[in-house]
């Protein structure tokens, strides 16, 4: 364990990962209860990636994510109640109910969404980093995306631009082995994605995305590299989604046994094992964290339940900026 892993940090990681896990388990219930609608893509199984990366960032660093971004939003510190209210479609939601699960935004936390067109966030991240460089702000933009995005032309265009212009972007590929129902081997002629990224002359690593510590370590190194002006870094995090792609997925394309095998090395299990080995597990007081997390989620649900509906008269608000309404 290379990381200077103290108890506080261990508690924090565990808390974050558990929060995502429990939050989303609750989401499943609420989806069945028809409180949440639309597409709901769960991050369960992949918690170590968002946690390891985002807890290592500076608060000035920006995040661009995908439709599978509850975890990223929560870890970034967007209040669970605002996220839950958004999933309910309430006015108190972080996007006032306009975005829903796939479009969480919190600019005050430099959380820039929530994109549902696969690959569509990558060029944005490049541009955000470009702006930071031009305005002499020593910030990093982190861009999360899946293995499926790698086949899209925008992946290619964005990686080339970031490398060509040596921009402060941290690309984080959450390789959960499937793009919806299509296994990586049916999608890519080269299945080592880190290897692909290297062909743009981008510093690139494949890491164990189930190990929050490995992710945090790699992120720390990546940020150093980027801040030193050496250009973007690419991290391929090997992970797995335990649940269906979305709530409409019959999971015909993969074996239950495969899922089971991955569950055994899930981020919470792995982290616990590592902490036990380091003699830290007993000190983090998992029960307390479990209770804290449950309280947060209960509150979030109550907040969402008590939320109000955005006024229909405001439907056309935010299409254009108010200053020059036309």
């Amino acid at each position, binding site marked *: 364990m290379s990381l200077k892993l103290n108890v506080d940090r261990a508690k924090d990681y565990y808390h974050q990962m558990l929060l995502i896990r429990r939050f989303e388990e609750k989401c499943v219930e609420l989806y069945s209860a028809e409180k949440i609608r639309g597409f709901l893509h769960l991050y369960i199984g992949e918690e170590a990636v968002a946690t390891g990366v985002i807890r290592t960032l500076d608060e000035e660093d920006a995040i661009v994510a995908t439709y599978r971004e509850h975890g990223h939003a929560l870890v970034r510190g967007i209040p669970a109640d605002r996220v839950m209210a958004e999933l309910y479609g309430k006015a108190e939601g972080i996007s006032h*109910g306009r975005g829903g699960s*796939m479009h969480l935004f919190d600019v005050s936390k430099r959380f820039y969404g929530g994109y549902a067109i696969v690959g569509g966030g990558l060029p944005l991240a490049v541009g955000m980093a470009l702006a930071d460089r031009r305005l002499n702000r020593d910030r990093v933009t982190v861009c999360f995306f899946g293995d499926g995005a790698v*086949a899209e032309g925008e992946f290619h265009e964005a990686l080339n631009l970031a490398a060509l212009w040596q921009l402060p972007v941290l690309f984080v590929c959450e390789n959960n082995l499937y793009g919806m129902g299509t296994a990586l081997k049916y999608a*890519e002629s080269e299945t080592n994605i880190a290897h692909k990224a290297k062909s743009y002359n981008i510093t690139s690593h494949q890491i164990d995305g189930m190990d929050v510590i490995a992710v945090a370590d790699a992120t720390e190194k990546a940020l150093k590299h980027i801040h030193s002006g050496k250009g973007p870094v690419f991290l391929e995090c090997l992970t797995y989604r335990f649940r269906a792609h979305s709530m409409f997925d019959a999971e015909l394309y993969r074996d239950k046994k495969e899922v089971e095998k991955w569950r055994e090395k899930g981020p919470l299990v792995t982290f616990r094992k590592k902490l036990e080995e380091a003699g830290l597990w007993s000190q983090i007081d998992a029960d307390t964290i479990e209770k804290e997390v449950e309280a947060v989620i209960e509150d979030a649900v109550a907040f969402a339940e008590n939320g109000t509906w955005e006024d229909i008269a405001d*439907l056309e608000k935010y299409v254009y900026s108010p200053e020059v309404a036309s």
Partner: protein
Amino acid sequence: MSSETTYREAMREAIRTAMQEDERVFLAGEDVGRYGGSYAVSMGLLEEFGPERIVDTPLCESGFTGAGIGAAMNGMRPIIEIMTVNFSLLALDQIMNNAATLQHMSAGQINVPIVIRMATGAGKQLAAQHSHSLEGWYAHIPGLKVLTPATVQDAHDMIGLALADPDPVLIFENALLYNAKGTLDITLKPLPIGKAKVEKEGKDITILAYGINLFKALEAAETLEKEGIDAEVIDLRSLRPLDDETIMASVKKTHRVMIVDEGWKSGSISAEIMARINEQAFYELDAPMGRVCTMEVPIPYARHLEEAALPNPAKIVAMAHKVMEDA
């Protein structure tokens, strides 16, 4: 020979039949195979036809649509499934600059017998990036044909019509219709591309609609009936070409017209229809034409906001009243 079935199954049946009858037909797109199709249209076809004919593609809309065009240029009859119209923007260059222009650029040496299917429309709370209704917008492009099956019969028939057509045909399938039930008669001779269909005759006002809005229009017509307004409801079926003949015939009968259309209002296919009626039947009009379109906003997630943005029977009834009361 008619039976009750769903829109989804009618479509699957048509694809299956086409694949059995013609070796050159194949289906390609994201998750059409192992996943079973994002809207389950192709469920089971991989097992029947194998991965060479039910082709799971990587996520690369431009790449696989372009590959479909290339395959069509070289003897195949591809059905390309773009999961939803929202992602088709990534393939627009291939669609407009290649599929739609190749025949003309090559002076008829090449034709592109491709069928491109995609789900369209809002109503499932999928928010701004997953709820476009761009079929009317695509109808702007010369060289393409744009079909919008509303009924189970058309869901079936239009696959065959599109495959038989030597030119690129786009089929827009309302995602909300896949579960819709209806009657399918596979022995019926399909109504050709470019023909609209009078779904309900009436004498007071013409309501033109397509896709899912046909049913909203029919529902509105029932309400209007009770109020003593006898609406004629027409399923446009094809947005390019539009069936001017059927449209104008109805206008000449009712002298009042409205259009229901899920596109954003400005620049919608409704506008084009109004323009044509103005050009071809101006003096037949007793009142300004009306249209019920989608509000000009990116579609919001929350149900009440989404509903407020879309056409619905109440809005159609209200617009019918407006058109009727005028003059």
